[in-house]
């Protein structure tokens, strides 16, 4: 076995036996994320459960009874009639009965409708605890939908009585049909559905990239700093092995961990988002967006180079730190601000920004995976190639500096307790 593989095997062994690391790499994304997603899913499911509606009817006419009947016959709605002298008393009763909503039908309700005046029905959401309020909102939505359906039904009957054969044309003289024109291609999907699917992609990706970059950076810093902390560095540096081989083996070991992180976090985020927000039933393919193998390859190279950049930056910083803790501190305080701008791209895209701002964002290597992803969807491969060029230059420059620093004696004599009091 060559030196590289001997050193690489040792790095991997050392990393894979690190319980904290395995926790962050496997348990968090594969168990905790999906569990969190499930938890949120259960919450939503619960909110979608039975709506308990109390009704206080102060109306004596037929339309009030009709409304009660409509509510009564709706699915997922349980109706309880409350007897009360006034609204305040009704609210109190409804609250005591643990109802989610109180519907108050005021006196003269039927009369107004009969006389072609607008009638009002009051819908009170009852918040007995100040939780998410999701249940109350879902309940209100349901009641409103029932009221609207009923309202429309009454309107149609009235219109028909006036002698019109097609009441809906009269009630909604204008109807909107939404379609989308996606990059020169007409698709039968509403713009809001298109933007929903794009948004779900553009939220997941920055988060996965962010987690992956910060995680690998920490591992890389740890790979160097732990040699210092455990006093194994001096021995390592006197071994009959090229210094560049040592650096390469450390990068290799960390890269494997980064790869594992990329896989587990993508998977974990998928199931988190999938189980909590419900998958969209429109896919990229429906929008006429085809992801080609070339596109994936180019995008993969961009992600790889971004991680390589983060890795060498973290190692360079760790070389000048005295122990794992201070290495982690300095790496976080440098990588986090650099990784943050990529979140801007969750809400805006590059082309809508002023040129200067766009270039400023692009000068930060960590924004490239997100931008490159958009370019990949758009099939703008020349731009991805440009990004690869920039990232390669940045990563190589840093790698060179890291290898240089590793060969000098500063790695032994620099003892920065970054952000801590010097001892």
């Amino acid at each position, binding site marked *: *076995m060559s*030196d590289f593989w*001997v*050193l690489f*095997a*040792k790095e991997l*062994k*050392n990393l894979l*036996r*690190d319980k904290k690391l395995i926790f962050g790499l496997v348990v968090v994304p594969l168990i905790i994320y999906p569990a969190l997603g499930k938890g949120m899913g259960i919450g939503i499911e619960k909110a979608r459960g039975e709506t308990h509606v109390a009704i206080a009817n102060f109306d004596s006419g037929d339309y009030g009874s009709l409304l009660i009947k409509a509510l009564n016959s709706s699915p997922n709605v349980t109706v309880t009639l409350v007897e009360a002298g006034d609204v305040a008393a009704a609210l109190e009763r409804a609250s005591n009965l643990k109802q989610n909503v109180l519907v108050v039908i005021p006196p003269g309700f039927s009369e107004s409708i009969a006389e072609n005046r607008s009638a009002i029905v009051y819908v009170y959401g009852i918040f007995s605890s100040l939780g998410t309020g999701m249940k109350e909102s879902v309940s209100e939505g349901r009641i409103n939908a029932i009221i609207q359906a009923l309202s429309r039904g009454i309107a149609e009957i009235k219109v028909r009585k006036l002698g019109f054969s097609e009441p809906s044309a009269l009630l909604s003289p204008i109807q909107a049909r939404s379609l989308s024109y996606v990059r020169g291609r007409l698709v039968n999907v509403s713009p809001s559905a298109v933007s929903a699917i794009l948004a779900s992609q553009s939220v997941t990706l920055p988060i996965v990239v962010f987690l992956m970059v910060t995680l690998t950076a920490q591992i890389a810093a740890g790979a160097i700093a732990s040699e210092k902390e*455990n*006093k*194994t560095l*001096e*021995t390592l*540096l*006197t*071994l*009959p*092995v*090229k210094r560049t081989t040592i650096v390469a083996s450390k990068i290799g070991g960390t890269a494997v961990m980064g790869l594992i992180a990329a896989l587990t976090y993508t998977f974990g985020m998928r199931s988190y988002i999938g189980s909590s927000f419900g998958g969209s039933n429109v896919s990229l393919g429906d929008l006429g967006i085809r992801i080609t193998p070339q596109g994936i390859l180019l995008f993969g190279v961009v992600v790889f180079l971004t991680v390589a950049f983060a890795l060498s930056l973290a190692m360079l910083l760790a070389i000048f730190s005295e122990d794992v803790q201070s290495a982690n501190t300095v790496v976080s305080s440098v990588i986090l601000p650099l990784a943050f701008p990529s979140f801007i791209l969750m809400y805006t895209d590059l082309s809508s920004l002023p040129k200067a701002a766009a270039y400023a964002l692009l000068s930060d290597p960590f924004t490239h995976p997100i931008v490159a992803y958009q370019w990949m969807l758009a099939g703008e491969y020349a731009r991805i190639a440009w990004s690869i060029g920039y990232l390669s230059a940045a990563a190589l420059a840093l790698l060179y500096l890291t290898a240089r620093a590793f060969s000098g*004696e500063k790695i*032994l*004599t620099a003892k920065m307790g970054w952000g801590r009091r010097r001892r």
Partner: protein
Amino acid sequence: MEVPAVRVEGLEKDYGKVRALKGISFQIGEGEIFGLIGPNGAGKSTTLKILATLLKPTAGKAEVFGHDVVEEAGKVRGMISYLPEEAGAYKNLTGREYLEFMAKLYAKGGRNADEMLELGVELSGLGERLDDKVSTYSKGMTRRLLLARALMVKPKLAILDEPASGLDIINAYTIRKTIKALSASEGVTFLISSHNMLEVEYLCHRVALISGGRIVEAGTPAELKERYEAENLEEVFMRAIGLEGGQK
């Protein structure tokens, strides 16, 4: 003329403002066991680190078997084995895995990793504990593991910074015997720093006394004792650095 194992000339080292070495010179012949003694902060470890290619001298020259430690650091690393004053082993590996890892890196040019490992296992004296993780070792056990790794590779030059520090009497004794044996049978050259005068007197063919970044005395233990009319090296040490008057 035969190339000396170590040749140091006018060596100086500054750590920022601190002048650790102020021009030291000495030579070590092949197969010799050479001791570097001196008070705390004298510059022993600094000298050893320069020879181990870890630090670069501010001025002067240091060579190992004729190879400059700065210009030909790679060559030098191929001939030496260095034991730092304060060192650890990889905590998540077992002792055996650690030795195996090191043996593989040194097994070059037809040298056999298995033989090194076998010797390492024997020298460590850790027995079954060798299959436990290094993180469960005591300080002395770790030191024995590190010493075993430094010696099992049978380097041309072994640079040991306070090799027996933290070892119990039995282990310190065993190590001294091993060093002597390796020097005699394999012709390994040793450069050792130590605070234990008994150890130095028993072990070293020649000794240099270093103080304040300068070599103040050098010679065989017998020569030094005679020069200072001392019973043992401890007295030589105290008198040479001027802390105790002579008996003359």
